[in-house]
């Protein structure tokens, strides 16, 4: 391990080097921009090598290893405050590094093909490398301030990549929205850091955890709450999640990497990191759990009504992140991290799959234009799809695998992690606020059903049945012949991620399942052994029958969701079935379709009034009142001065006059005081 310590800075810095080379050379030397092979492979290597290094470290690390810290240099130091550029490898950060660089490398590779015809190719890879650098800072920082550097850094990259096609103003607006909503969260995070510093005089993790007793109770609550608000920004939870669906304006590979697999999970990482503090306040835990559960069901309900395949996936991401927060708030920190990992696999796979589909639909549109046909349609709208499995077998199969995984069907990855979340939520009811947690568990179970339902709705509508475009769009009658599978640089990452979606869950097999068959005790949950040293999980106290009941229940729920989706969208017709759902759910459906009108509410209650107040009142007040008073004072002086106009004119004289006046005043003061 000793020699491997020197790999730590390389892991962080290689992506930065990639960014600097592609960014600077690309900006300065226009001819470099055409070296697409070089740019793409350089960028991919800058992420893949850190992945290899992380694996090397992983092989020399186990669940009981001590954390290793590598300090580059002191960052900010003033008075009693100090924070370093210091990177920490422990079980939690190593897990995140593996996910970030592993999935990151795959998505870099996918992008080589996906972005090939884009003129901003060099810029795209520069940003993507910068993102990995920032994300690694976030997860490897050994103090909260450096984490914050990564935290805002990933926000910046997200901004740059959502607005990658900035020529379209709507995309630029989406980028700005993402940054600003995150800033609201960051504001809270800053305050949390100030409180931590006030309590223990440092932002270093080791110092914080060594002095947990030094935190007064209300500090713990407020720090936890403020960190949670920060996390609701970055990880798209109530009330700040509205930026994430809009973030789908960016390239699809970006959505997979940043807005599904890595950045949006940083809030979960952070709360897990601070879990010893969170468990000190049951009220805090409850708030986290409630935020998570509500987000999960609200986002799932919106997902049911969407037609844009990326939007469905976006709301699904928000919903799954909600599951993770529910786990956090139920003392299932390991379960949350487990779901972070499995979600990274299947959701990245789904997003890349949707990218492959969109790629194909775009291709169809281009070909139709080449044929001189004036056919326009939204290539992301699933109403124009259907039957794609015949033409895109790899995309279809991988997409289906990932869908089964997210739906929670055993033995795929999502089943294990989601089941553990449901178990931990139920388990939390034995600790405190029992009835509330039972209620949250019910919400989660309902959401799990909805998840299976809307995900299979998406898969069936996209890949099964007939290709609907020719019937719906004039001029697209024989467009089906243009459908084709994506190149292997795109399908290889798809298959890799699909494979991980199948086997990824086996690191977290519940002990009781094995114990039931082999005897009284089993120790097969690798993830618990790995993270147990860091995560302050609630103890699992449920009896074996209860655990079995919960497990079988969650399988039944998922299966029912899949079955219903099959009846309605595989056998039935997409829009007709949606109409049926609408009829059944009554007044709720329009609310879901309108996305609870949150954007409009924020716009109307905060944004619009602030801008109007500033524009119509403050700016006018500034000109009329504040400057007006100054002018009024000047006018009075001028009036007095006009009496002296006959003997004095101009500036210099008034200067002299003031001087004389001043001297008189001084003499007066010297004499009389």
């Amino acid at each position: 391990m000793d020699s491997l310590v020197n790999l730590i800075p390389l892991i962080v810095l290689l992506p930065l080097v990639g960014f600097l080379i592609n960014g600077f050379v690309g900006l300065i030397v226009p001819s470099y921009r055409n070296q697409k092979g070089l740019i793409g492979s350089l960028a991919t290597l800058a992420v893949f090598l850190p992945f290899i290094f992380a694996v090397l470290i992983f092989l020399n690390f186990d669940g009981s290893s001590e954390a290793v810290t590598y300090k580059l240099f002191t960052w900010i130091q003033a008075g009693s405050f100090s924070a370093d550029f210091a990177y920490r490898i422990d079980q939690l950060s190593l897990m995140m590094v593996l996910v970030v660089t592993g999935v990151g490398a795959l998505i870099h590779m996918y992008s080589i093909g996906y972005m090939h015809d884009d003129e901003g190719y060099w810029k795209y890879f520069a940003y993507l490398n910068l993102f990995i650098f920032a994300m690694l800072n976030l997860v490897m920082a050994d103090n909260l301030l450096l984490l914050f550097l990564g935290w805002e850094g990933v926000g910046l990259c997200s901004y740059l990549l959502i607005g990658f096609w900035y020529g379209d103003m709507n995309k630029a607006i989406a980028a700005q929205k993402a940054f600003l909503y995150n800033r609201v969260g960051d504001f809270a995070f800053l305050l949390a850091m100030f409180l931590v510093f006030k309590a223990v005089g440092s932002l270093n993790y080791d110092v914080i955890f060594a002095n947990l007793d030094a935190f007064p109770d209300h500090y713990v609550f407020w720090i936890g709450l403020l960190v949670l608000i920060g996390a609701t920004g970055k990880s798209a939870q109530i009330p700040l999640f509205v930026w994430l669906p809009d973030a789908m304006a960016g390239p699809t590979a970006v959505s997979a990497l940043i807005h599904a697999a890595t950045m949006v999970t940083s809030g979960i990482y952070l709360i897990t990191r601070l879990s010893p503090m969170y468990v000190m306040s049951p009220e805090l835990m409850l708030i986290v759990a409630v935020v998570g559960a509500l987000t999960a069901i609200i986002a799932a309900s919106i997902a049911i009504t969407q037609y844009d395949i990326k939007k469905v996936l976006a709301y699904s991401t928000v919903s799954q992140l909600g599951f993770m927060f529910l786990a956090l708030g139920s003392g299932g920190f390991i379960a949350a991290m487990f779901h972070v990992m499995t979600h990274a696999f299947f959701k990245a796979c789904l997003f890349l799959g949707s990218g492959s589909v969109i790629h194909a639909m775009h291709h169809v549109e281009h070909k139709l234009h080449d044929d001189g046909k004036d056919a326009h349609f939204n290539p992301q709208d699933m109403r124009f799809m259907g039957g794609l499995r015949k033409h895109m077998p790899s995309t279809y199969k991988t997409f289906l695998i990932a869908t089964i995984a997210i739906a929670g069907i055993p033995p795929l990855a999502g089943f294990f992690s989601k089941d553990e979340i449901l178990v931990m939520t139920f388990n939390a009811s034995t600790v405190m606020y029992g009835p509330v947690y039972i209620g949250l568990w019910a919400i989660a179970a309902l959401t799990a059903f909805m998840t299976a339902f809307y995900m299979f709705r998406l898969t069936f509508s996209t890949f099964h049945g007939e290709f609907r475009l020719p019937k719906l769009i004039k001029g697209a009658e024989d467009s089906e012949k243009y459908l084709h599978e994506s190149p292997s640089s795109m399908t290889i990452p798809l298959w890799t991620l699909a494979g991980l979606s199948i086997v990824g869950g086996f690191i977290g097999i519940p002990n009781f399942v094995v114990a039931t068959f082999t005897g009284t005790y089993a120790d097969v949950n690798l993830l618990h052994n790995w993270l147990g040293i860091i995560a302050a999980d609630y103890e699992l106290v449920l009896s074996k029958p209860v655990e079995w009941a919960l497990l079988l229940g969650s399988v039944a729920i998922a299966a029912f969701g899949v079955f219903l989706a099959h009846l309605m969208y595989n056998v039935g017709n997409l829009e007709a079935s949606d109409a049926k759902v609408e009829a059944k759910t009554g007044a709720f459906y329009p609310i879901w379709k309108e996305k609870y009108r949150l954007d409009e509410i924020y716009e109307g209650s905060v944004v619009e009034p602030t801008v109007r107040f500033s524009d119509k009142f403050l700016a006018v007040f500034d000109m009329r009142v504040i400057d007006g008073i100054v002018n009024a004072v000047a006018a009075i002086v001028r009036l007095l001065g006009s009496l002296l106009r006959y003997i004095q004119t101009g500036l210099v004289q008034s200067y002299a006059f003031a001087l004389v006046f001043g001297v008189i005043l001084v003499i007066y003061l010297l004499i009389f005081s």
Partner: protein
Amino acid sequence: MELLLHIVILLPLVGALTLIFFNNEHIIKVFSLVLTTATFVLSLPLLLNFIPGEVNYLSVYGPMVPGIDVKYIVGLDGLSMLLFMLTTFFGPIVVLSGWSYIKDHIRGFYAMVMILQTGSLGVFATLDLFMFYIFFELTQIPMLFLIGIWGGENRIYATVKFFIYTLVGWLLMLVALIYVGTAAGNMLNDGVFTTDWRILTSPEFKLGLVEQTWLFVTFGFAFCIKIPIMPFHSWLPLAHTEAPTPGSVILAAISLKMGTYAVIRYLLPLFPNAAISFAPAIAILGVIGIIYGALVAMVQKDVKKLVAYSSISHMGFIVLGMFAYNTIAMQGAIIQMVNHGLATGALFLIIGMLYERRHTRAISDFGGLSSVVPVMAVMFMIATLASIGLPGLNGFVGEFLILLGSFNSEVLNSYWYVVFAATGVILAAVYMLWMFRRVMFGPVTHEENKNMKDLNFREIALLTPIMIFIVWIGIRPGDFLQYSEVQVEQYLQDQLDKAAEITAEAHYQELPGWASRFYDITPQVVEKINE
């Protein structure tokens, strides 16, 4: 080294006078560039040989005027070193920024810029209050001409407002200054008027509480106007907007810092009791300035005005940091002065480049420029991000330290300052990114913008050094914070000690009622101290 300091301060002035002998416009420009560059290069040894914690390169000449003990005292310490360097650093940049922008009266223009340079360097280097005043006036007059002659359409109005407003404050201050000098003379200099900073800040020089109050208000008023602190800011948007690019850059990067620098150098140590008791009120003004400046900036339609209002917001942070009375916040305030100079300086430079190309500053006249002028877009983006305090760039270091220090401030003793001030972090992102989007993103909507030329070599050359420092300070702020660290700690402690001593010596019976209430000197407190 002492000699070198004199040379650096006076070289620009000598250069300005030498310009009389030149007629060729090109030679004038090149000469000015060489001279300001030489000034910067010569100032580097001053930085490299600097020893923190003491006054370096101190030299004293005088008295300059018979009968009163006003001396030419110059030296650099932790409070002034960085601002001194910032001034020499911006010299060549300012000269280059006017290269093609200024077309009339070129000789006069460069003469004014260089006189201003000497004045600014003197302001930061002098350790005599009266000389500070003189040097300050030496910066005002060239600035008056810069705006009045080379400014925009509304330049005369802007000039008059800028000049008179500042002058009123500073003339009142002159009165107070004479009082301070006389008092110091009577107390410590055998009755001879003195404004030597070392005497004024010595533990023996103690002003009574009533005197401190009105002196603080008078000095404070002058500095409030210069910084500016809301509600004394209304000259600033006008002056910034009407000034030519080099003028705006000097105003933003150097001139505004004179106000905050004067607060640290003179206001706090001279009147410690008043400063501590007024601290909450001024911090509140600072916080109001942060939010107010940001909100008004947000709705501006003129991009230059937007940046001007953003200055009010940024200076609010510095004000908050100065009055928090701890090392962390004060260090933040000092580095933030440099940061604001760099980031806002860069923004004004870029806006100037836009103006040169399109002769408009209205946000709505731009749009989609990123695709037309990519290099400018990158520079603009970096300056914008520095301005909104992105970690890794310089602005964050200052803002973070200011907020962290203020949060732990015993003098302010409330979280609310920081809670409200930190909303500035959100608002800054709102107005800057909104502006950036409207200028740089979206489709190119105006025909005239389609063929806009990207930055030329000169423009890249003058922006690049600023960008380097924006990143350098962001990543290794210690390289810069080290100059003031030791001194600030000591200096704040000295003030608190001095204030406590003066309080202990105050006679409750002799104080007017308002003063004993304001300074919290009741019989009980006095009794407690006496015990």
